[in-house]
């Protein structure tokens, strides 16, 4: 696929009140433009999942790395990449899932609905990159069948 077929977007936030919702709006509008301008198929599930992932990652910036946050979106006809950079140097750490915990399980959820999740150390801070399927497909088994 040639690079001209890639659609990109970027936005920055200070993660003040209301910004979690603004990050979701940014992602939703990006996907709707992708559908309208490029004619790409974006399933209802993908629209849901993209906003969910954006919301979880932005929530974690609020909770664990308050301060500036940069969101990069990158789509081809098949997948959407959401890259969220924050200034915190602490990396989200993997440890055993605790099914008895009532807590938020934010990244657990992200892992379940994404094709991949990447953690990158940056010169300042870190970035997380989540990859989402735009269309429903047999390759996206863990979200289960769409119910609506």
């Amino acid at each position, binding site marked *: 696929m040639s690079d001209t077929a890639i659609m990109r977007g970027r936005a920055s936030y200070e993660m003040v*009140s*209301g910004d*979690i*919702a603004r990050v*979701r709006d940014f992602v939703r509008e990006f996907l709707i433009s992708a559908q309208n301008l490029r004619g790409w198929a974006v399933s*209802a*599930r993908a629209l*849901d999942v993209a*906003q*969910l992932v954006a*919301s*979880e990652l932005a*929530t974690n910036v*609020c*909770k664990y790395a308050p301060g500036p946050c940069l969101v990069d979106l990158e789509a081809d006809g098949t997948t959407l990449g959401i890259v969220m950079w924050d200034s915190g140097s602490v990396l989200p750490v993997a440890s055993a899932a605790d099914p008895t915990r*009532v*807590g*938020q*399980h*934010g990244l*657990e*959820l992200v892992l*379940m*609905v994404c094709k991949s999740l990447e953690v990158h150390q940056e010169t300042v801070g870190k970035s997380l990159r989540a990859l989402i399927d735009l269309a429903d497909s047999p390759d996206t088994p*863990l*979200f*289960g069948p*769409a*119910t*609506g």
Partner: protein
Amino acid sequence: MTTPESRGDRSGPLPVITPCGEFDLESLPPLKAQIDAAVAAHGGVVVDAAGITFADSSFLGLLLATHQAADLRIAAPSATLGRLLSVVGADAVLRIHPGVQDALAAS
């Protein structure tokens, strides 16, 4: 048809809360306060969830915590919420009903 009044095991029908819009870490506190108040007064609550256009793990945490402590009944979840609940298997744990009347009538 089963009406709330026909349930014999409670002094009155459970209160019904109808949250609308998007629920995340920031927008959750008023809803949580409403749910907590209903639970404190009645031991349970029906959440009419048809108008929930977005919910994430913060909202899910509130549902699961409420369910552990009280009689939480979710009615008519929107497609978006239904998908969220099924991803994490919460649809097998929580009590979900097709409509508010079913939720009220359930025992």
